[in-house]
């Protein structure tokens, strides 16, 4: 028997789960407000060395993406996130990337520069990953509502349209609007 990772268990305990291979075409993955749990607070440094906390994003819907430069599936999603940041940033939305590369900025900076990443990237650490269930599998993406509550989790690569539906649901806008 395979054991689910701690992230999966966390997601289950939060009642937040979505399957990357069996996503529903028309339904957002976000859960009802009353079923949401608070997103763990963390402080990490961005590319300029500035300490960034999740609390700074209260009032915004946040797509919190754990990724790494060695993770192929993560790289598929990054151009989508660049597009989402551009498209929804004025509507109370932000993408926050947490890079889990052990080598740190030495490998993260060249990559995000090359890909013209327009959202904030933070250098992740094990303690932050543990707060979010270990994040053993990448990409792992948490959808956090404007009140700082986790509304959904995607473990593994999901479709761009699924993310877009989730974001629109978080922003309280029906799909297609």
């Amino acid at each position: 028997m395979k054991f689910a990772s701690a992230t999966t268990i966390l997601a289950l305990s939060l009642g937040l789960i979505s399957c990357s291979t069996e996503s529903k075409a028309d339904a957002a993955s976000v859960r009802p407000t009353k079923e949401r749990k608070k997103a763990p607070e963390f402080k990490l440094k961005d590319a300029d060395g500035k300490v960034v906390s999740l609390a700074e994003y209260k009032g915004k819907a946040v797509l919190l993406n754990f990724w790494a430069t060695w993770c192929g599936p993560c790289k598929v999603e990054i151009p989508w996130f660049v597009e989402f940041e551009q498209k929804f940033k004025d509507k109370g939305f932000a993408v926050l990337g947490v890079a889990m590369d052990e080598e740190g900025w030495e490998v993260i900076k060249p990559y995000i520069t090359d890909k013209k990443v327009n959202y904030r990237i933070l250098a992740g650490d094990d303690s932050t990953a543990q707060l979010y269930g270990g994040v053993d599998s990448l990409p792992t993406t948490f959808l956090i509502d404007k009140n700082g509550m986790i509304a959904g989790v995607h473990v593994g690569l999901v479709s761009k349209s699924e993310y877009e539906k989730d974001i629109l649901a978080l922003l309280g806008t029906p799909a297609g609007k």
Partner: protein
Amino acid sequence: MKKTSLLCSALLLASSCFAQSINALTVDPPQKVLIERGKSVSFKIHAKIAPGYHVNSNKPNEDYLIPLRMTLAAEPLVLEILKYPAGHDEKYTFSEKPLNVLTGDFDILVTIKAPEKIEPQMHVLLGKLRYQACSDKACLTPKTLEVRVTADVR
């Protein structure tokens, strides 16, 4: 009881849904090799990759990928050969070009030599096998497995 089985079912569903496992690669238990002073001996380190996963080979085609890599502290014996398995090219939805990967079972071939003047006794050689595994949808964080080989020098 009902709650417990519901939780177990949910966990099973989640683990299969995400094809997520903590240990995508396992190495056979420690092995013992006999070696005569002044001679060499070859042995295989056998590993098994969980179904649905692949591990980057030692030469995975893309610079950004973390290759399979093994180190073996052989002293006072001498490490003569450490040969990685040849991977095969496979295309994944997340990669533009085929990646050189390993799936299923594989062996790493090791040859060590016992110097003429070494003491005839047991020597424990400690190895570290670093790998990075992915499915077609997600990648597990890089992991390092410890490998122990006991060399009985006679």
